[in-house]
């Protein structure tokens, strides 16, 4: 078989990429669906971008980059929550302002990285990811962070889902919107950190929003959407790792980066989902109206 001949599965960087990539695809599928249902896609994107400051700082401090991404994602998440995220217009404003400030920090930390330490390629790996260069020592932390996401969502699935699709109904049922919102942000921060580690802070949105966005177009129920988002995310990530590996042979040793293939595949899946939804007469706009009644 092609894969066996080329040593795909026995390659250490490929194994690490497969594990971390799988984590990223799975957590982003779950969190992505919630994020989109809450209308927080832009906030999710901003969080991922801002987490780059943490990734950049981790080189300076000599700490685990996953912790760096996570710390900054959480700070930004609570910053946005604190600045007020009730009305959509205000939320976009608060998100935009936190995004700008966070990227400013990234610029500073990346500058300090290259001017005071011997780290090379910090900018590329923080912003766009270097999946084949992820150290094996990060597999454990990535698994723990992903388990954290599944634990949070597993325990709070129903209240989270209800809050996401109909906050008023959730409040009427005695769910604390503040607490659910906060826990949701914790989970989002974890997912962002794992995605940023895999494909870079700037591209993390593609995994976080893309597969979930495509899946929601094709599904009638949230659980179904999560399932499809996982399937699409995993296909995109695994396919990309394989294509990046094979591209070594296409371009005489100059392999293309995994992140490029991930983003491209996710985009193609989304386009396909839009087309399929059109052909099958599924309208995305009706979903938020139908869904709460399915679940509640």
């Amino acid at each position, binding site marked *: 078989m092609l894969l066996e001949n*080329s040593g795909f599965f026995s390659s250490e960087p490929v194994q690490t990429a497969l594990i971390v990539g799988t984590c990223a695809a799975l957590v982003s599928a779950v969190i992505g669906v919630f994020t989109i249902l809450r209308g927080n896609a832009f906030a999710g994107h901003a969080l991922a971008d801002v987490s780059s400051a943490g990734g950049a700082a981790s080189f300076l401090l000599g700490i685990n980059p996953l912790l760096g991404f996570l710390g900054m994602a959480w700070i930004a998440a609570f910053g946005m929550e604190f600045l007020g995220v009730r009305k959509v217009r205000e939320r976009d404003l608060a998100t935009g302002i936190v995004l700008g400030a966070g990227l400013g920090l990234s610029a500073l930390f990346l500058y300090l990285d290259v001017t005071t330490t011997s780290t090379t390629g910090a900018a590329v790996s923080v912003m766009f990811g270097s999946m084949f260069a992820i150290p094996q020592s990060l597999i454990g932390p990535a698994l723990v962070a992903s388990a954290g996401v599944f634990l949070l969502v597993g325990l709070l699935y129903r209240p989270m889902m209800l809050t996401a699709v109909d906050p008023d109904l959730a409040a009427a049922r005695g769910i604390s919107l503040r607490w659910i919102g906060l826990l949701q942000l914790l989970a989002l921060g974890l997912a962002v950190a794992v995605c940023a580690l895999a494909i870079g802070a700037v591209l993390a949105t593609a995994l976080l929003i893309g597969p979930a966005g495509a899946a929601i177009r094709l599904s009638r129920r949230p659980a179904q959407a999560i399932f499809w988002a996982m399937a699409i995310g995993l296909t995109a990530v695994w396919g990309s790792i394989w294509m990046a590996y094979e591209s070594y042979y296409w371009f005489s040793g100059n392999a293309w980066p995994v992140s490029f293939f991930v983003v491209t595949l996710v985009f193609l899946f989304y386009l396909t989902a839009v087309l399929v939804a059109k052909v099958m007469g599924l309208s995305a706009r009706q979903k938020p109206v139908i869904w709460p009644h399915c679940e509640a």
Partner: protein
Amino acid sequence: MIPFNHQKAWIRSIPNHCLRSRVTVLMPLIALFAGLGMTQVVVAATIHAVGVENEYANVIGQIGGKYVTVSAIESNPDTDPHTFEASPAVAREMVGAQIVVRNGIGYDSWAKKILAADPNPKRKVIVVQDLLHLPESTKNPHLWYKPETMPAVAEAVAQRLTELDPARAAYFAANVRKFDVSLKPWYQVIARFKARFGGTPVAVTEPVADYLLQAAGCDIKTPWNLQAAIMNGTDPAPQDVGIQNQLIKHHQIKIFVYNQQVTDSLTASFLSKAKAENIPVVGVYETMPTGYSYQSWMLAETNALRNAVERGMSTTVLK
């Protein structure tokens, strides 16, 4: 009055440390001397030169001796020079110099831009790449590791210094001869290494010392694309990483050479694997470390290579 840009040129010939404090006092004096035809007084002051990379600055200093003040821009051996970012102070330093030596091959393209932004026909710029007639497509920019580079640089520096201060021509020429002689011990160590250990298989993280390794007859086993990926901080191909890991695991190399200044998690993993397999490790520098001259630095690194292959000794840090 003398034309303004002439004034500027004379100000440049004052040692840099005097510039800020004394320039206002000196300006009328310079104009006066110039007007009286006493230019010698000013020209006799030291020539201000910049070596963009500190190893070039070191050679300028050895050739110019007491008649030149040299500054180096890239001189921190703890950072990666490939990612250097120039500040306005650096730009001032560069455009104020009478002689600038820079490496070329994209290694210091920021310096090229700064110099182009402030054209001055009087400034003498030596591009080492041009000196060696190397095309822009040259893959490995670390030219100072080539044994034949510095004699050419020394010669070119002496020529420019002589143009600026013809009265010292003999002094500069004598320094070039002294410099060439002082390189001999290094050349001998390279020649002996090549004779005894030619063909020694080695692995590297990135190409910094490749020219020296080639001159010493080593066989660099690491795929070029992996070296380039680490040097440029791009995604390494898993296949290339696999080849490197195999080289270490199966003891197909005798020395593992790594760049102290270009490190990431991948180079760290190669390093720990090499140490675990008891393969001698030699850490090399991209920027001349403190306490060394160019000659003693190159000699120390070549000796470290010899110690590695002869006695299985690792040299991770130059002290």
